């Protein structure tokens, strides 16, 4: 949030825990949801929303805000949890998740939810839209950053690589891409579906300031986000984050990996208990 205070990072594990907890509560409402992804990306969202980004929760459209583009619409459950934790969406709306006329639909849509900047879901859109937003912000001499959270599966899309070229060509130093590499997409492990590695070499070759970190290590994420913001060359920035699906809930971490992990009705409470048991005290 605005002007991080000394010791601010100490809150981040608690923020990440709260995001996981809220996402699990939403999943329980519908008995489904992309919960394994929400659990794996919670640390990234905690660092983005509570360390890196400049926001005014009471004014989600404030002109000076950093933009956060979620291209992976199915991660909406995780972003809603972050928006609730940030005070942008009221906590009471958890109960409406995925319901008729809810502001929190299963897949993220810009016109439904305060703080949801773009409509995701059709993959490979976020980074190309971010290219234009970065150009537009530069026209306004804005110092805001555009963050785009994308997934490793999304790197299969040609449009992502069109945007990779454009970002470097147009020297978009106000663009920070974050890739959640959980090595899982609809038809199986990402490496089996379509090999995109070596990712660091590829993005560097495309002219991006590239870092790769453990996406479930908050200290490493803080360091990487800081370096991405402070990098002083006219290049777009990317943080490739290796994450573990189901992170924070041991029985989900151990469950056979799938794009859509089933959670049985009685398991939601159990998941919350396991999550709380692991909370650092």
């Amino acid at each position, binding site marked *: 949030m605005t002007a991080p205070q000394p010791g601010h990072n100490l809150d981040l594990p608690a923020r990440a825990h709260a995001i996981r907890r809220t996402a699990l509560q939403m999943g329980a409402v519908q008995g489904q949801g992309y919960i394994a992804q929400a659990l794996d990306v919670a640390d990234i969202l905690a660092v983005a929303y509570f360390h890196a980004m400049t926001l005014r929760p009471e004014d989600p459209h404030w002109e000076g805000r950093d933009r956060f583009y979620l291209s992976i619409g199915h991660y909406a459950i995780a972003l809603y949890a972050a928006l609730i934790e940030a005070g942008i969406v009221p906590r009471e709306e958890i109960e409406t998740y995925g319901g008729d006329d809810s502001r929190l639909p299963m897949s993220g849509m810009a016109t439904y939810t305060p703080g949801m900047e773009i*409509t995701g879901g059709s993959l490979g859109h976020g980074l190309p839209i971010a*290219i234009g937003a970065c150009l537009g912000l530069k026209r306004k001499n804005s110092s805001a950053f555009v963050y785009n959270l994308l997934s490793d599966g999304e790197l299969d899309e040609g449009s992502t690589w069109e945007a990779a070229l454009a970002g470097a060509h147009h020297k978009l130093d106000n663009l920070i891409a974050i890739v959640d590499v959980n090595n899982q997409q609809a038809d199986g492990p990402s490496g089996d579906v379509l090999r995109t590695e070596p990712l660091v070499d590829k993005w560097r070759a495309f002219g991006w300031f590239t870092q790769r970190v453990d996406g479930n290590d908050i200290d490493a994420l803080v360091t990487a986000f800081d370096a991405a913001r402070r990098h002083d060359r006219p290049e777009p920035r990317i943080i490739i984050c290796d994450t573990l699906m189901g992170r924070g809930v041991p029985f989900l971490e151990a469950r056979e990996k799938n794009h859509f992990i089933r959670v049985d009705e009685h398991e939601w409470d159990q998941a919350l208990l396991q999550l709380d048991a692991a909370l650092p005290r």
Partner: protein
Amino acid sequence: MNAPTLPPKPRLKTSAMIASIAAAGQKTKPAPFGHALVALARERPEIVGLTADLAKYTDLHIFAQAFPDRFYQMGMAEQVLMSAAAGMAREGSIPFATTYAVFASRRAYDFICMAIAEENLPVRIVCALPGLTTGYGPSHQATDDLAIMRAMPNLTVLDPCDAHEIEQATAAMVDHPGPVYMRLLRGQVPLVLDEYGYTFEMGKAALLRDGADALVVSSGLMTMRALEAAKALEADRVDVAVLHVPTIKPLDEAAILREAGRTGRKVYVAENHSVVGGLGEAVAGLLMRSGVHPAFAQIALPDRFLDAGALPTLHDRYGISTDAVVRRIRDGL
């Protein structure tokens, strides 16, 4: 050994991609879109131009020369072209994105749909080579773009006739509240409608001439052809009305129903597009839904991948030349 002497070949007509659609001796104006955009951009600093390696071929190079810092070359990458235009519109710019109609409609559909139209962003998509305006073959002949674009919610679809109308439509687009797709005639563009005291209005059809025997409802360059055909048919004492419909979506239903509802006139819908999904089927659907049932025919391109060749040859072959329109109307009486 001496090479055998070949008999001289007959000189063929050209199928060059950038052949002008102007007839010999026709009054034209150069690059009406590019010049109109420059004039508008002087007043409106939010206007920016983007292209996918086709500035010179969509008349956007004139804007690029006048405002180099407001011109964004996205490379031959139509997906990022459309999405970046959406991103710029989100941040307050008024983007004009240009490419060929085939590439916008076929390559970038999902990006126009989700990044631009679903959020109703004011992106102006301006596309050259609509319908059959190049003899280069199906790779560049956008015979299906109206069908594709009409299916998209929120999108306004324009098919202007000539240089005069392109200038006016470009101005009208600037402050239009949602996204617009405009078919563009580029280069030396015929000038026709200035003689009809015509002014473009978004969403409005215009009766350019009245006539008792037949009604042609037309858009784009087919309005030019319909007017020429109507003049030619005067000699045969055939009285043809021409209703020009430059806004394909939303359709000016009132004007079409008013004119098509007049008894005793066969209705022809003439368009530089396939018979599938363009103005013809839009008008047919409107008439059926409204209980207005005149004799009806389409003057349009066949539902086929078209030949390569010279434009005059192809327009005649596929029935959209002035002579072909004259024959269709005369034979239909």
